[in-house]
């Protein structure tokens, strides 16, 4: 019985007693990129050209990588210092290339974009509600709650409280804010306004990335919801491998585990509830629609992940027709059931 032991630079033929019968060394120039190619090759189960040459010469030999416990005990030649340094440099480059590749991973990019936009939205809402309260303190007669979205712009552009009160057609209070207080309020309003436009820009970025990364799912559910499902499943590949029942309740983990542990009613929908086909349906068919929609979403995500045929508009229309059918057959709440 003979064996072939090899690593990235040398291959040996050895017999049962560990005697070296034949040897081939890599004679090429040891450049960084060539070593990386070789490490990549053997790392993925391939064998080097030296090992292949020996295999042709010794057809009945068993080929193993150096260090494999199946090989008989033998002395494997050690690399000299120059080789070792070249190898170390290549190994580090390989690892750095792997890290750099992670930057191109759309799953990770989506995750950051989505989390950032969620944080920004939370911050924006808190800041806006403070602005509303703040304004109402000075101008109690103004109906600020009516048009919150315009309020930030109006305040940021007004020059004084008097100016603002005219803009909002409200009465001036007896005592108003001091100069620096007023300026703080205006800059707060400016920040609220800035947050809003940043949030819009961020959501546009999510739309672009999601439409590219999840074309079919985005077509079916809209890019923002598609991105949300992908992120909460920890990636497109994992989303595609999840059963449709899991896709249906992604985002409703709290309710789901409370169901498992305490026996509360199971959730009917998670993030997918945001889709108007579910949230705009009457309560007694939401479970049915979300079950159907999750199954379709699961199929669409598989088309995206495994490079299948992308969904056409007709397919989405078919799903919409199914929703209409469900709505038509269940026009009234089931008897005896209440919300």
């Amino acid at each position: 019985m003979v064996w072939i032991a090899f690593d990235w630079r040398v291959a040996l033929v050895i017999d049962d007693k560990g005697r070296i019968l034949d040897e081939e060394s890599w004679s090429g120039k040891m450049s960084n990129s060539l070593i990386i190619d070789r490490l990549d090759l053997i790392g993925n189960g391939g064998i080097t050209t030296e090992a292949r040459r020996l295999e042709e010469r010794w057809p009945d030999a068993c080929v193993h990588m150096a260090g494999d416990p199946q090989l008989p005990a033998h002395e494997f030649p050690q690399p000299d210092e120059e080789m070792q340094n070249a190898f170390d440099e290549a190994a580090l480059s390989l690892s750095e290339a792997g890290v750099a590749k992670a930057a191109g991973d759309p799953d990770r990019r989506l995750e950051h974009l989505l989390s950032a936009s969620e944080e920004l939205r939370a911050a924006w809402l808190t800041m806006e509600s403070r602005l509303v309260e703040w304004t109402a303190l000075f101008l109690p007669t103004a109906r600020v709650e009516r048009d919150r979205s315009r309020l930030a712009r109006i305040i940021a552009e007004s020059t004084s409280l008097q100016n603002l009160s005219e803009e909002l057609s409200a009465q001036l209070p007896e005592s108003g804010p001091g100069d620096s207080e007023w300026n703080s309020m205006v800059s707060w309003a400016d920040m609220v306004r800035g947050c809003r436009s940043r949030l819009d820009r961020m959501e546009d970025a999510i739309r672009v990335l999601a439409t590219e990364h999840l074309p079919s799912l985005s077509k079916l559910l809209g890019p923002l919801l598609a991105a949300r499902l992908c992120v909460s499943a920890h990636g497109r590949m994992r989303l595609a491998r999840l059963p449709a029942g899991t896709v249906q309740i992604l985002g409703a983990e709290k309710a789901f585990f409370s169901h498992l542990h305490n026996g509360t009613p199971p959730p009917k929908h998670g993030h997918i509830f945001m889709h108007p086909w579910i949230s705009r349906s009457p309560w007694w068919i939401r479970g049915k629609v979300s079950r159907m929609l999750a199954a379709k979403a699961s199929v669409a995500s598989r088309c995206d992940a495994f490079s299948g045929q992308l969904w056409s508009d007709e397919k989405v229309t078919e799903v919409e027709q199914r929703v209409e059918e469900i709505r038509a057959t269940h026009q009234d709440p089931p008897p005896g059931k209440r919300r």
Partner: protein
Amino acid sequence: MAKRRGSRRPFGKEMMPGLRLQGRTAWTENATPGQDVYGETLRRGGLEEWRRWDPRRSKLGAGLVRTENEEISLLPKAGSRVLYLGAGHGTTVSHLHDIVCGADNHRGGRLVAVDLAPRCLRDLNHLARSRPGLIPLLADARKHSMIAALMPYRADWLFQDVAQASQVDIFLNACERFLRTGGLGLFSLKAASERWDGEGERALFDKVATRLSESGLELVENIELAGFEEHHMLFVCRMV
């Protein structure tokens, strides 16, 4: 900026090249003097600079404090070949590098540090730039061919700290493939990563201990890490 203190007088007791003990606190000789890795205390002693091995940040560091055997019996010797699975951000790895390789790898050791997360590898790559002999590898600990490509030899010392469901299998397979006969394999078991069987943590630890010894490893010691790292047990095994 790291805290630095102490005089030129040696302190504690030198257990082996690169490792000092003062009480139960371990210090390793800094391979990159003046630089700390994770905010640990730096200290002069003799001509060298020493880094405090924080048992709260490193499970191996906690193992050194808790072990009933001699501390150095847990650690690899200077110049040995080490495989570390689940290297994380390089806290423990940096101390091992101090011992096994030292500054400019003058001890001639090899330390292959494997992790699956690109985020961790980013830190390990920075560490490897200043510490020759440390080889970072972005790979799954279960994918042996990738590890073997960078490690065409068997290791003298192996450490595994991966918190995932099949951690015992990963450890046994890795020992079988990569650990030389007589080599030491350390395995940090996170109870929460195993499937809960309703019998409690103690039963789980016992079960794993039985499995390790049945698979032909000699179980040297189980070190309870509670107090430093909850729900963790460090198993020390010898390959026979």
